Structures are given as structure tokens and as C-alpha cells.
């Protein structure tokens, strides 16, 4: 297994917020990719928003299997979408809290379909909080050269940040 993490790039949302955080022109010099994200959505009222991931600006070909827990119940579900989490902190979460997400993408330059996994936890001072594990498949053989990260319903608030790492044996 590749064992060395190298920071490729990072992005932080400014005062105006942003609909997406995008990494483009990702170098093909690593084996795997990993995204660490600390985020909060401007979605009104609700405690959480969904995290969507898009590779190469392509919005089709995604399937995911999700295990979710909220402190009182556990569920699982299948989605045919770019779904990567439902644990993004939103306006209903305690003010100034941010959810944490890690997305791992092995063999991102291969000519096979691309798998990815994601684990996420929300942060809020309440009885119910979200955590989930996602196993995803992007049925596309193109090498991944760009990644977009977006809340499904709303936009990222200021100070949301994402860092992209490349992983390889070196």
C-alpha cells in the first residue's frame, strides 16, 4: 500500500462563500488521492446538508452505498448519485461548527472504473449528530484530473477548507 502523503493543494472559502471547491489539473504522479475537508453549508434550518463529489466535471456514472448513524438509529442506503456524505454541518448545527470529512480515491489514474470511500462526522451541540461511511464507484475509465466538492442543497460558508493529498511509495 502507498505510504507517503504529499500535500498537493488546499483551498479555503472566503467571506462571500462559494458553491464549490474545485481542484483542477491534478498531477498524475501519485498512486492514490486523499481529500481532507472541514466544511459548513449555508443550508437554512436543517442540521445537515449532503456532500457531493464530482470528478472531471462529469455528473453521471456514480453509485454509492451508505451506512449512517445519528445517535439514535442506524440506516443504510444505495444512491445513484454523486453522494459522498449527509453529515455536512448546516445552519441548524451549533454556530461556527464544521463537519469533518475524508475521501480516499485509490488508483485515480487507472483505466478501470474508480472506487472511492468517504468517512464523515458532523459537529453540533445536540443529541443527534450525523456520521457516515460511504463506498462509492465512478463507472468511468478516464484518469481523474479534477475534483469538485459541493454541498447538495446550498453553498460553503467562509472558512470551509479542503486539502488534497497525493499518496505513493517514496
Amino acid at each position, binding site marked *: 500500500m502507498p505510504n507517503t502523503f504529499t500535500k498537493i493543494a488546499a483551498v479555503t472559502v472566503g467571506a462571500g462563500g462559494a458553491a464549490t471547491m474545485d*481542484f483542477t*489539473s491534478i498531477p498524475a504522479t501519485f498512486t492514490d488521492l486523499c481529500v481532507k475537508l472541514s466544511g459548513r453549508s449555508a443550508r437554512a434550518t436543517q442540521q445537515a446538508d449532503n456532500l457531493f463529489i464530482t470528478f472531471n466535471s462529469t455528473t453521471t456514472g456514480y453509485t454509492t452505498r451508505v451506512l449512517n448513524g445519528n445517535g439514535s438509529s442506524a440506516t443504510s442506503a444505495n444512491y445513484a448519485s454523486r453522494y459522498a456524505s449527509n453529515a455536512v454541518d448546516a445552519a441548524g448545527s451549533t454556530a461556527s461548527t464544521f463537519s469533518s470529512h475524508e475521501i480516499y480515491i485509490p488508483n485515480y489514474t487507472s483505466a478501470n472504473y474508480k472506487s472511492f470511500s468517504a468517512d464523515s462526522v458532523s459537529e453540533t451541540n445536540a443529541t443527534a449528530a450525523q456520521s457516515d461511511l460511504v463506498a462509492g464507484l465512478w463507472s468511468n475509465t478516464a484518469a481523474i484530473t479534477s475534483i469538485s466538492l459541493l454541498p447538495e442543497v446550498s453553498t460553503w460558508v467562509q472558512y470551509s477548507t479542503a486539502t488534497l493529498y497525493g499518496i505513493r511509495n517514496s
Partner: protein
Amino acid sequence: MTTAIEVNCATGEVTERQLTTEELAQREVDAQAAAAAEHEAEVKAAADAEAKASAQSKLSALGLTADEIAALSK
């Protein structure tokens, strides 16, 4: 607030740009799908609660105590 923050991993340059027409259209599709899923979940939750209350009422009519009914779902 329909902007994207984009970092070019080759150059390190960070730019902020307006979403394209296609991206805006996709966001609309995503939002509608989320609203539909949320509505579906609310309807299911309400139906489940109604079915549970009905089942508990029928069990109570058969003579089960509240503790006995609760034990069935453990």
C-alpha cells in the same frame, strides 16, 4: 453566491469564477432531487409512525400491557 473557488494543482493558482450555465442547471437538478428525497423521507416517517401507533393500539386492545408491547420491539 454562485461562484466556484478553483485551485490549479499544477500552478497553485487560486481563482474564483462564476458557475457555468451547465453547472447552474445541475445545481437546480440536485436541489430538486434533494427536496424530493426529503419529502419522501418525511412521508415514510409519518406512515411508519402511524402504523406503529395503530399496531400498539391493537395490541393494547388484545390485553398486552405497555411494557409487554415495548418488549416486542427490543
